[in-house]
């Protein structure tokens, strides 16, 4: 037995070594790719004037769809923020997903909503839509509020919004997100300017936790003071700026975040809409639309832009963080149990040969490999089989490499736009040194926990993100527009 374990763990450490070499090579490539992608974006933004989209009468309409469940704290500031987007033609669809608090009441009062006889059709199945509201005030004529029975997940609510959307593109966002004024203008650009048919675009998300927000508008971006939120900020910068922008260069984006994504509505509906059973509906949607395009033999692209356009309130307590990560892990597990046939399938091109294999081996399997690696390490230490000088060098290298990647991601982020003061950037860099020690183990533990829950089919629901809100929001005096027919 001892002999077997010795051989197994010795063999395993070689596997881990090869695995790490490959993943570090990929991260190095992604670092380079993301730099090139960001430079290309900066060059393009000098040549392409976004004002053109605002001035042009040809600019396509966009439906902003945001699901709300018990969001009375933030709902008004968020809706105000959405209604003041810098874009010529858009509608805002708020889906009240069976809230039990005063979300709907607040909306009705603030925006002078009245129930209308809306001919609603279930293009995509979802829970029953009870009522639909429009505003009596012409200032909010592009606001539509759908009141429906709770579907248990965001996907069901988004499908309900899609059924009522009248524009050819829709923005999927969360009600706890604060969007930049130019979000729509920035995200629609790749659809207008790419050689291939773009079916989805995304942008960088940031933590809003310590930001100064007034009436739904970001006034001052600040690095979170809460440690957990700060680590998430670092993780987001690395994931979006380095990861997604890197994959963007080779048209292999694995996921468009549910917090901010602009989609071609026709393709989403033809792909069947969002999966209400999925815990990771955002990644599942990307798989669906990519699969649909491959099945119908159409060339497509999914693009990311590096600008930070969305600020979201991240979990600040371990309890809420755990709930979120368990859900994400379950979602990832579901993706591979649903789409395993696409793995290494050349029919699905970059989806089957790059996106899914990378995510399976280096995202899904990573927590297992890491956990087993730790067990292996403990065993080897206990069996006095560790070459200590080499082990320490390797540990220092691994730690340094992960710090380097994170620091480079923070530097790349500063190339795009400098929202944070130098002091705050320094703070981010400092905590990057603690992230692998304090934060990363939590991510691994919750990932494995989530996989276990999914494997054992332990029931859980979406849960609810407890919000602190964005502070006192100034009550806006409603503007009543009287039209005079002469």
């Amino acid at each position: 037995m001892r002999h077997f374990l010795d051989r197994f763990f010795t063999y395993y450490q070689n596997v881990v070594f090869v695995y790490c070499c490959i993943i570090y090579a990929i991260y190095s490539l992604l670092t380079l790719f993301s730099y090139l992608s960001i430079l290309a974006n900066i060059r393009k933004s000098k040549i392409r004037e976004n004002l053109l989209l605002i001035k042009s009468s040809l600019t396509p309409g966009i439906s902003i769809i945001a699901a709300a469940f018990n969001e009375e704290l933030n709902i008004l500031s968020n809706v105000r923020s959405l209604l003041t987007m810098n874009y010529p033609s858009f509608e805002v669809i708020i889906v009240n997903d069976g809230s039990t608090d005063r979300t709907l009441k607040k909306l009705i009062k603030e925006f002078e909503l009245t129930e209308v006889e809306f001919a609603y059709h279930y293009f995509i199945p979802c829970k029953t839509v009870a009522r639909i509201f429009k505003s009596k005030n012409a200032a909010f004529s592009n606001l539509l509020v759908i009141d429906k029975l709770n579907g248990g997940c965001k996907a069901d609510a988004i499908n309900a919004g899609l059924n009522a959307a009248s524009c050819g593109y829709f923005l999927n966002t969360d009600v706890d997100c604060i969007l930049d004024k130019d979000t729509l203008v920035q995200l629609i650009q790749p659809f207008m300017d790419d050689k291939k048919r773009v079916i989805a675009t995304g942008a960088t998300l940031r933590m809003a936790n310590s930001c100064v927000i007034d009436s739904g508008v970001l006034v001052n971006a600040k690095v979170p003071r809460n440690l957990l939120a700060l680590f998430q900020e670092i993780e987001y910068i690395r994931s979006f700026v380095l990861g997604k922008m890197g994959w963007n260069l080779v048209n292999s984006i694995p996921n468009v975040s549910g917090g901010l994504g602009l989609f071609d509505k026709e393709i989403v509906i033809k792909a069947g809409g969002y999966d209400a059973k999925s815990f990771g509906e955002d990644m599942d949607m990307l798989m669906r639309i990519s699969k649909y395009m491959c099945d119908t033999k159409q060339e497509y692209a999914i693009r990311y832009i590096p600008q930070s356009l969305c600020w979201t309130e991240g979990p600040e307590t371990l309890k809420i963080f755990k709930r979120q990560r368990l859900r994400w892990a379950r979602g990832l597990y579901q993706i591979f149990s649903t789409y395993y046939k696409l793995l290494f399938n050349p029919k699905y091109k970059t989806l089957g040969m790059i996106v899914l294999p990378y995510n399976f081996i280096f995202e899904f399997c990573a927590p297992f490999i890491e956990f087993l690696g730790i067990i292996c390490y403990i065993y080897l230490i206990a069996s006095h089989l560790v070459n200590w000088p080499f082990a320490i060098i390797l540990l220092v290298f691994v730690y340094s490499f992960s710090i380097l990647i994170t620091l480079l991601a923070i530097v790349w982020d500063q190339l795009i736009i400098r929202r944070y003061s130098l002091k705050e950037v320094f703070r981010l860099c400092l905590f990057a040194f603690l992230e692998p020690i304090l934060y990363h183990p939590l991510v691994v533990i919750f990932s494995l926990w989530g996989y276990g829950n999914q494997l054992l089919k332990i029931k859980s629901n979406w849960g609810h993100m407890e919000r602190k809100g964005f502070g006192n929001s100034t009550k806006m005096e409603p503007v009543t527009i009287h039209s005079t027919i002469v």
Partner: protein
Amino acid sequence: MLLGIAMGDEPAESAAITKKRFDARPLYLLGLSSSAVKKILVNEMFNYRNYFSGSIAERIRRLYIYLSLDKEARRRAHSKNWEVCANALSELFKMDVEIDQAYLMQLITNHNRYIREFARLLLMKFTKEDPLQFLRELNEPLSQWQEFEIFLLFQQKTDYTLGSLEGLLSLTKESSVVSLCLKLAVFFNQKEAIPLLIDLLLTPDLKLRAQTINALGKMEADTGAKHLVNIYPEQPHEIRLKILTALGNIRNTQYLAFLEKEFLNSEDFEIKKIASDAIIKLYPISSGTIETLMENTDKRNQKILHHSMDPLINAE
């Protein structure tokens, strides 16, 4: 400061630029010889030209020329570096400054996409007669962005002679150019292009067919309505929706019965909805039809009609 220098105390309608016109000393004090300062200044000039029109925009343009910034841009437009060249062409385009046409004709076959696009835009901007001639020989699709830019050019320039679109429509094979022509035909309300649009209804390209139907609707082409109704039965679902929308825009009451038939007989929600919208658009002629439908049809149809009639739902 920039506005003050540009406006000075001279009337905007004066002819040639003289040294007396602009007192640009404050700008030179800022360090106009520095390329960074020039860059910021040029960006500010773009912003002012975007936010102001008329004499202020023209004065800013003249100040740009007075400071010899156009000479710099023309020099950079000859750069081998595509980014420098494209930015320079973009700058000249935004500032309404001409550049040697012969050079631009070379650039429209450049390997770089952005250079080709800006060269084309500059050629079109400064060609008053038949500016679309530069699209005839196009053998690559126009990006939607370029379509927007060209369309905006036509929207803003009032002294263009578009010429007949028929010539371009009959010569070009490129569907993106045809798509642009359709939009321009609608914008300029070129009724003489309607027979050509009717011919285009037979195109195998579904997207182009949909755009043609859309254009016929927006131009309220009465002569096209008959053809739309004739081709309706063999069309796929998306095209049928476009036809119904176009019939609503054309507002020819001759087809009210057709719309009513589609509304009542079709099981498809989208067909019903668009037919209902089209019937409502024919109000007040269709008021009798609407009343009859409301009284005699089922709840689902009534709801669709209510939806089409509700000003709160249909407010833009």
